[in-house]
């Protein structure tokens, strides 16, 4: 893998709503690039990237899988991601380390809820995208309607580079507006055979019209191209491609291609577009270095340019444990690293030695001896590196911008079926949580039960299944519970003295702490304003630790306390009797006392819910959502189906699917995803507190 010049590499992801055809498209790409001789199908359970048992049985992607292929002298590293919202962490971390993405939408439904979420995620990481409108072979497919949803739902300037020739059963190929020709697939040979033709007479007018839009839009970002156009009345293919690439990378517009992955049409031009329009590692501005605490984010942030000769830097973005040990996936941003080298984990500030290195192909691996800027590889032998950590050379120990992780909103308790398996289960769950930042593990302080927090019922179901199959632990699980949070609604200053000075060595510590509410999603902030050594420096970390531990168990009902700031303003110590432990105890007690007086409240997750229902059931659906404390946001009709959007507390959504099915005789469906945390109404707070008491 050494020696690929950086401009001949593409690191891309494939992302979309569930079932849009990401895995099916990836499978074609692997076939046409010669990596696989056969095409696997999702419904046959034999695709390359859906390699887990659970993926093959259920026909969905759960974990992202990286594969590598060669196309026209370029190396393309592709990550196939899942569409289901419960596994959104996989999309998140993939987009974080990729230079570009293929964004698939369906030719029938167009932009769907998860497409929107993933689009915004890609916006957050500034990932250049090309759009592929898939499934044009399906009954009801309509390129132009699907295209229109791009503007409606995503509010983007979408720019067709192709038009379909025929539709549904009669879809045979595309008009290429860049080169003004038709590309026709011949059928047979799994779509490997296709040829160019003149544009069909009947489509010529339409093609000319769209080519003018293409020129207008693309050249608006390329002044040299404009001059060429004024001179010659047209531009060369090369100029037009250059302009499209510029606009794609800056996001001025988003190119759109189309086809049907399943019927093997349109995939090769999609690969060409990846080379022509998506950036290589040197075409992007470079990854940002994290800001120092208190510093504002912005354009002044230092960026790491892709350069094989610079000091090494990379980001650990995925961890998996298998029978050979722990594999840490790293995107290399700069420099070169050989197996056996040492690097700094600059996030955690310790040294790591790289054992062996692999290039991954889904679940298969090929050993390599070195990695370079622009590569994605898996390392073995790292001791303490988690998802989101930076690895860097001691010469330039940068910390790269961290990733943002989704908030787990559902809790379940797990208990092994046999007492002997307790330790085995804990160990296994720790490993699983180490792989998956959207899975959290904690022990209920009162009952001693292990509590898993995850993104949804499917997410937790898969975890329990993996626990059984991969780690041989059979577990009983409790009913899913809402992952509530606690916070405070007004500021309060509390002083607490911890004193035990009767006989023997005593304990003494006094802390005065101001607790203040913060905006939602601010987390927990600490400030130390002690002057004159009223609390000696060496005890400050103990105060922080005390609060951190205690904040995990809120004062109202034992849920984690979030969105508050605590400021240590004063305190007292004793020359002999003070200790770190004494200050930790004082801080814990100060939190318990202080929080109670700061008007604590309980927060609950509110979900964005989208129900798709036939017209005749809208009344029932809306009425039901209202009864579930839902706030209807809007309704939209598309044909005879209505889409109802609402925000509903998660608590009220358990078991919704079976209710909806029976209410509509199975004709309605819904999706939901976390939106924000809100205070719970009084009566429900009482209910929650009574339960926890």
């Amino acid at each position: 893998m050494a020696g690929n010049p950086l401009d001949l590499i593409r690191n891309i992801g494939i992302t979309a709503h569930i079932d849009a055809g990401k895995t099916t498209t990836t499978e074609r790409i692997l076939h046409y690039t010669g990596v696989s001789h056969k095409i696997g199908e999702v419904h046959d359970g034999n695709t390359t990237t859906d390699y887990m048992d659970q993926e093959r049985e259920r026909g969905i992607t759960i974990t992202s899988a990286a594969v590598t292929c060669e196309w026209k002298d370029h190396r393309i590293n592709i990550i196939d991601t899942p569409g289901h919202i419960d596994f959104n962490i996989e999309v998140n971390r993939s987009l974080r380390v990729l230079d570009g993405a293929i964004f698939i939408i369906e030719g029938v439904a167009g932009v769907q809820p998860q497409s929107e979420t993933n689009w915004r995620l890609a916006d957050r990481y500034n990932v250049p995208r090309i759009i592929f409108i898939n499934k044009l072979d399906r009954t009801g497919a309509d390129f132009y309607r699907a295209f229109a949803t791009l503007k409606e739902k995503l509010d983007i300037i979408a720019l067709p580079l192709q038009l379909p020739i025929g539709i549904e059963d009669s879809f045979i190929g595309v008009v290429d507006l860049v080169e003004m020709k038709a590309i026709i697939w011949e059928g047979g040979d799994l779509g490997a055979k296709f040829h160019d033709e003149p544009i069909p007479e009947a489509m010529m007018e339409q093609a000319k019209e769209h080519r003018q839009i293409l020129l207008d839009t693309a050249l608006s970002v390329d002044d040299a191209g404009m001059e060429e156009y004024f001179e010659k009345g047209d531009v060369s293919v090369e100029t037009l491609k250059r302009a499209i690439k510029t606009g794609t990378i800056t996001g001025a517009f988003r190119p759109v291609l189309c086809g049907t992955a399943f019927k093997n049409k349109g995939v090769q031009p999609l690969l060409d577009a990846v080379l022509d329009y998506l950036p290589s590692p040197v075409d992007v501005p470079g990854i940002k270095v994290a800001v120092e605490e208190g510093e504002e984010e912005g354009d002044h942030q230092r960026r790491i340019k892709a350069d094989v000769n610079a000091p090494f830097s990379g980001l650990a973005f995925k961890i998996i444990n298998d029978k050979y040990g722990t594999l840490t996936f790293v995107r290399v941003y700069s420099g070169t690293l050989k197996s056996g080298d040492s690097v700094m984990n600059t996030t955690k500030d310790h040294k790591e030695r790289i054992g062996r290195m692999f290039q991954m192909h889904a679940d298969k691996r090929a050993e390599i001896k070195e990695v370079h800027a622009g590569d994605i590889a898996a390392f073995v032998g790292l001791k303490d590196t988690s998802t989101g950590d930076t690895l860097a050379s001691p010469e330039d120990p940068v910390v790269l911008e961290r990733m943002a992780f989704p908030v787990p909103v559902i809790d379940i308790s797990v208990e092994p079926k046999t007492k002997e398996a307790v330790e085995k289960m804990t160990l296994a769950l720790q490993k699983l949580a180490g792989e998956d930042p959207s899975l959290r593990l904690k022990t209920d302080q009162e009952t001693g039960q292990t509590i898993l927090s995850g993104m949804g019922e499917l997410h937790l179901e898969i975890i329990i299944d993996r626990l059984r199959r991969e780690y041989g632990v059979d577990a009983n699980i409790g009913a899913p519970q809402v992952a509530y949070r606690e916070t405070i609604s007004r500021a309060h200053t509390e002083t607490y003295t911890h004193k035990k000075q009767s006989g023997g060595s005593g304990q003494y510590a006094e802390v005065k702490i101001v607790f203040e509410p913060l905006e939602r999603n601010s987390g927990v902030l600490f400030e130390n304003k002690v002057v004159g050594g009223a609390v000696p420096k060496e005890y400050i970390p103990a105060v922080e630790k005390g609060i951190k531990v205690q904040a995990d168990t809120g004062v109202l009902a034992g849920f984690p306390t979030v969105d508050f700031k605590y400021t240590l303003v004063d305190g007292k110590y004793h020359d002999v009797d003070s200790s770190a432990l004494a200050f930790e105890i004082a801080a814990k007690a100060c939190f318990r006392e202080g929080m109670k007086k700061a008007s604590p409240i309980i927060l609950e997750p509110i979900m964005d819910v989208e129900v798709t229902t036939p017209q005749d059931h809208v009344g029932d659906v809306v009425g039901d959502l209202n009864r579930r404390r839902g706030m209807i946001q809007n309704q939209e009709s598309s044909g005879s189906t209505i889409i109802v959007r609402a925000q509903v507390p998660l608590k009220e959504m358990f078991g919704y699917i079976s209710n909806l099915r029976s209410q509509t005789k199975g004709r309605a469906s819904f999706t939901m995803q976390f939106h924000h945390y809100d205070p719970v109404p009084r009566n429900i707070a009482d209910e929650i507190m009574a339960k926890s008491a």
Partner: protein
Amino acid sequence: MRLRWVRGRDSIMTKAGEHAREWLGLDDAGNPIARVIHLDGPMETERGTFRAVALDRDAKLIRLLPLPPADGDWLAVIGGRVVGRAAAPLAAVRRAEAAL
């Protein structure tokens, strides 16, 4: 009437200190008789963020809108008068030529 188009100023200071892009349409004698122009980026004022969409002869702002207008923010200008708008410079060029 078809004109010969050349790059105009690529930086025009207006009252708001905006940056602009411009193309000039020349007649057969090489005299500029039309232009298309675009003010880059929304501008921030105390009252909010606006798109500048119309200009007088000296490229001073004459109108601010909260959102880019549906018919585009490239202006076709002839003799100091806005004769059309478009989303892209080439389309604005066609508007200008059509208006001559």
